[in-house]
C-alpha cells in the first residue's frame, strides 16, 4: 500500500460486500459499513434488495445515512414495521432472511465471533456490548457475511468468548447441531477476502483474494493463525468510479463511516 490507490480500505470493503448481494435478497443489516454495502448494492445491481433492521423496519429506504439501528429515517417510507417479536420469531427464526451481516471484536478461523468480553467473563478486562441480535443472526440467516478490519488482536487463534457461532470447530459442526443457516460464507477485511473452504477443510477461513497492493505476508502478519489459501488467488477488484461516486456523494457524504 505504498501509493494512494484512490480509495480507502473502507470503501473497498463496502464495494466488495455490496457485490456479494444478489437482487431480491432479504438482508438483515446493521448500521455502518454493512448498511452502506446494502444501499450501494440497491443503487446498482440489486434494486429489489429488501433491507430489514432488527429494530423492526422492513424494506427500509433511508433518505439519510442512519446513525442508529433505530433511526426514524428507517421507518419513513418503509414497507412495514414489525414488532421485535415478529422480527426474531417470524422473520429470522422463520427462515425469511437470506443474508446477515456480522462484525465482531474478535473472530476466529471458523468464523466464530466475540462481542461480549475481552478476558474472563466474570472479571473482564474489557466489557463489550454483548450479543444484541448477533447470536440468532449467526444461527438463522441463510448466509452470513463478516466485515472487519484485520489484525492479530481481532483475529486471534482463540477468541475469549463465543457470542455468535460461526462454523464452531469446522466441518459440518453447524449442521450437526441442527442449524438451518449456512453460517459465515465470506469474511471481508481491509486486506483480503476469505471464504470457508470446501471438503476436508470446510468451515475454516481461506484467503481467496488479496486487495490491490496487499501481499500474503501482510495478511499473515495480521492474523493469529497460519491461513489456508485458495489454489487460485485472485486480486480484489477495486471500487469502480460509480461506486465511489455513490458512496462519497450520496450514501455517506459526511464521511461518517468511510
Amino acid at each position: 500500500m505504498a501509493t494512494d490507490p484512490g480509495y480507502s480500505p473502507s470503501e473497498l470493503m463496502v464495494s466488495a460486500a455490496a457485490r456479494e448481494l444478489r437482487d431480491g435478497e432479504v438482508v438483515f443489516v446493521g448500521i455502518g459499513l454493512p448498511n452502506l454495502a446494502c444501499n450501494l448494492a440497491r443503487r446498482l445491481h440489486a434494486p429489489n434488495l429488501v433491507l430489514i433492521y432488527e429494530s423492526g423496519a422492513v424494506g427500509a429506504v433511508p433518505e439519510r445515512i442512519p446513525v442508529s439501528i433505530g433511526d426514524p429515517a428507517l421507518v419513513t417510507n418503509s414497507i412495514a414495521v414489525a414488532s421485535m417479536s415478529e422480527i426474531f420469531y417470524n422473520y429470522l427464526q422463520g427462515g425469511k432472511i437470506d443474508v446477515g451481516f456480522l462484525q465482531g471484536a474478535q473472530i476466529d478461523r471458523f468464523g466464530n465471533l466475540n462481542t461480549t468480553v475481552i478476558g474472563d467473563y466474570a472479571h473482564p478486562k474489557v466489557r463489550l456490548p454483548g450479543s444484541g441480535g448477533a447470536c440468532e443472526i449467526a444461527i438463522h440467516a441463510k448466509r452470513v457475511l463478516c466485515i472487519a478490519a484485520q489484525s492479530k488482536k481481532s483475529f486471534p487463534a482463540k477468541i475469549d468468548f463465543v457470542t455468535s457461532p460461526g462454523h464452531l470447530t469446522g466441518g459440518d459442526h453447524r449442521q450437526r447441531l441442527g442449524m438451518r443457516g449456512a453460517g459465515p460464507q465470506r469474511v471481508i477485511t481491509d486486506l483480503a477476502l476469505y471464504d470457508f473452504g470446501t471438503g476436508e477443510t470446510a468451515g475454516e477461513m481461506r484467503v481467496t483474494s488479496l486487495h490491490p497492493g496487499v501481499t500474503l505476508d501482510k495478511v499473515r502478519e495480521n492474523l493469529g493463525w497460519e491461513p489456508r489459501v485458495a489454489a487460485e488467488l485472485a486480486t480484489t477488484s477495486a471500487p469502480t468510479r460509480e461506486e465511489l461516486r455513490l458512496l462519497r456523494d450520496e450514501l455517506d457524504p459526511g464521511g461518517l463511516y468511510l
Partner: protein
Amino acid sequence: MELFLNSAESANVNPEKLMPMADAIARFVADGAEVVIEGFTHLISFAAAHEIIRQRKRDLTLCRLTPDLVYEQMIAAGCASKLVFSWAGNPGAGPLYALRRAVEQGLPHPLELEEYSHFGMVARFQAGAAHLPFLPLRTFTGSDLPRVNERIREIACPYTGERLATVPALNPDVAIIHVQRADTSGNCQVWGLLGVQKEAAFAASKVIIVAEEIVDEAVIRADPNRTLLPGFIVSAVVHEPWGCHPSFAQGYYDRDNDFYVAWREISQDAAKLAAWLDEWVYGVANRAEYVRKMGDALTRLTARQQMSSGVNYGY
C-alpha cells in the same frame, strides 16, 4: 435437514405475481395439499374457495379456526378429506348441516377431524410462523379434548416443573389471505379484525394474497405500521373486489347476515346445497360474474364512510 445455501428464488424479484384467481389456484393449490383460508369472520376469501371448487381439487386437508360456510361449501363439493379446526358452526345462525352430514353420515364422503380449541389453533399457527416445532399454552386442562386428539400433549417447564399443554406447529402448503389493499409485489395492509392471518401466512410454504384493491407501493409505504405482510413472502397477488361475500371487509362492505341466515335452509338439504353450488359456483366463470349476479345486494352491503385520520411519519 433443509440447508439454506441458495436463496435463489426470492419471491420479490418475480414481476409476475399479479394473476387471476384461476391461475393462482391452479399453480399453488395441489390435490392433497394442506390449505388454509383464514380470516376470523372478517376477510374470508370465498372467492378462492369457489375457484378451488370449480377446479375440483380433491383430498385437501382444510385448516381453519372456524370452518364457517367457506369450508362447508368446499366439503359439500367434495374437495376435502380432512378438517383441522376449533369451532364448526354457522356463526349466529345455527349448525353447519353439510359438515354434520360429512361427520355423522360420511356424505359426500367421510371427513377426518382434527380438533383443537381456538387457542390451540392460534398457537399452532404461531408455532408454524416461528419455525418452532411446538408451543406451550395453558388450556385443555380438565377437558376431554386431549383424550380424542393425541397431538395435544404436555411438557414440564424447565424452571418451575409445572406441566403445560403443547400443540404442534401447523405449516400448511398454502395460505390464502384476503386483504383490503395490496401492491403488485404482495405488500399488503389490513385493518379491522386481524384474526390469525399474519401467523398463518408466515407459517405457510406459499402465500396467495387476494385484495379488494391493488394500490401503488407508495400507498403501502405511506403507512408502514398498517402492513400485514411484506411482499417477499407472497407468491401470488389476486385482485378480487367483493371477494369475501358473504363475509365482510371493513370499510368496503358489510357482512351479509341475510345470506348466513338463508344458508341454514340451504345447507340442511343436500339437493338444495348442490343446486346452490351449481348456480353460484359452477355456474359462474369467476368472481366477477358472481359479483354481477349479486345485483342489488351490492348497494345494500356497501360500507358507509367513517375515515380515520392520518399520523405523522416525519422526523
